[in-house]
């Protein structure tokens, strides 16, 4: 985990339905970097994104936007 001040996986918590039990993005992430925070909201927990998009594509409410990590942009 290096720097998550500006996480490249952005989650719109107004759309996210993790509080209803949804774990889709957490389940499909190959590098397992998305986690449920203590506040019940999904957040990027490790700076290990492969920008592959299953989280964004499989999200039932389209709450996720994946940006290209800053170092590659």
């Amino acid at each position, binding site marked *: *985990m*290096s720097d998550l001040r500006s996480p490249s996986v952005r989650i719109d918590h107004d759309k996210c339905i993790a509080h209803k039990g949804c774990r889709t993005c957490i*389940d*499909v*992430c*190959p*590098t*397992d970097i998305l986690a449920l925070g203590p506040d019940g909201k999904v957040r990027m*927990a*490790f700076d*290990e*994104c*492969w*920008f*592959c*998009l*299953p989280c964004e*594509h*499989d999200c039932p409410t389209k709450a996720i936007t*994946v*940006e*290209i*990590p800053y*170092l*590659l*942009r």
Partner: protein
Amino acid sequence: MSDPKIIETDILVVGGGTAGPLAAIKAKAANPALRVLLLDKANVKRAGAIAEGMDSVNNAVIPGHATPEQYVREITIANDGIVNQRTIHAYAIRSHAMIRELDSWGVKFEKDATGEYAVRKVHHMGAYVLPMPEGYAVKKVIYKQIRKLGVEVTNRLITTRLLLARDGSVAGAMALDSRSGEFVVIQAKAVVLCTGSAGRLGLPASGYLFGTYENPTNAGDGYSMAYHAGAELSGLECFQINPLIKDYNGPACAYVTGPFGGYTVNAKGERFIKSDYWSGQMMLEFWRELESGNGPVFLKLDHLAEETVSRIENILHVTERPTRGRFHDGRGTDYRHDLVEMHISEIGLCGGHSASGVWVDENARTTVPRLYAAGDLCNVAHNYMLGAMVFGAIAGEDSARHWGGGDLPDYDPAQIEAERRRVFAPLERAEGLAPSQVEYKLRRMVNDYLQPPKITRKMEIGLERFAEIRADLDRMKANNPHELMRAMEVHAILDCAELAARASLYRQESRWGLYHYRPELPARDDGEWFCFVELRKGEDGRPHLFKRPVPEYVVPVAAAELYAYDQMRIDAAE
């Protein structure tokens, strides 16, 4: 620490990406009474190199377009003759049936107006590329078959070592649950390793550890596990090096754009290679172009019609690496009027793209009884996605038939405690080095000392640095099971780095273009080195290197034809 969780199964398949699901499906289909467990460190639904899909089959052998014999000849030539043709032939004769089976499951392949597969030409000689217009769905289609057949699936387990039976065969595997931190022992009658390439070996030029071409979950775990189980590894000096979009570090991709008229040019806008098919010879010409001052090298699409560019975007920006479009948008790159800057990737080990992997025969058997390997992990040259599926299928069927009966092999339980101590040490240590820092330094050293051209003195220094980093493994500190998984991956990456250096030093010639280019030994030496370079862990615990003769060809290749890939360069005078 609590006792390990023990799981019993008949056939254990490690890796749920491309080869693994087919191995599990075919093992279960061969004998539905067997327990088949498919395990992945991620989630089988979205695991492996094709987590997000694949936009084309690169090596379809379809009647009317190619014959198995043609394909075997093509790959023999593409790999400078160092192939076990029996394995390539075993793939080729099942290639068409595999496509038809995938088609029947719901995978969409491009067809022409008459309903025939629309095969395209990218390779140096034959035509083997078949687009997959809805390739983003391939994992989902296969997952349905896994469920339908009753294959058991376990996710988020990273396998760290194979369990060895008392007779030297394999009795299962040991794994870490990267979420709960639980230690798991899986007993099995046979193990099929499908853990993919060693894709986190070199450091991407961006410096971002996870900005790799391969799915970064493919850290080389399987190479390390097979090595420590005593299996023979093959061709680790035949690196994977790819022409990728600079900084994005993903494919451009020549297999998609080539048939539409895209091609590679230098800074003057001139073509300099005859074929964009990925080979070491092509990469060498790419490197020479950069060295000559004619670079950068670009992918050129700006001459194509609007509708063609749109079709390319609809494939390239949707499947396999769908963030390509997002990357280009960020830099204001539009294929219609901009060239796409390309570069030479960091090194990796991969059977599917080059030829480095665990040695297998035409039944996907390794040199250790009860142990199989398939997909990018095995050494079947240029096997790609469809080859991974076919070899997975072969491994699944053979393991079920050969080992499905009988009892679980007996093993020494002491190895479980030893492995548990190794795995959990970074968690139990009070303080130490961050696994990500050790990984960064290791992979930077891989770039500094192993990236071709390969220089003897540099590789020797690299081995010294790797030995120092090996001592650092015992200083790593993990704060949670996730970091512990990363720490165990660093162990595997280091094994791959050391073995790749040793194999590269052992082969005293140049071969496969840039993949094994040694300027001190610039010529190919067929007298001494028309053979495989193999290694296995010796009785002394050290890597033991040796030559393995190239098995007699089943498809003859004329001497004049064998090095056709040498003529890759288009001379400026032409």
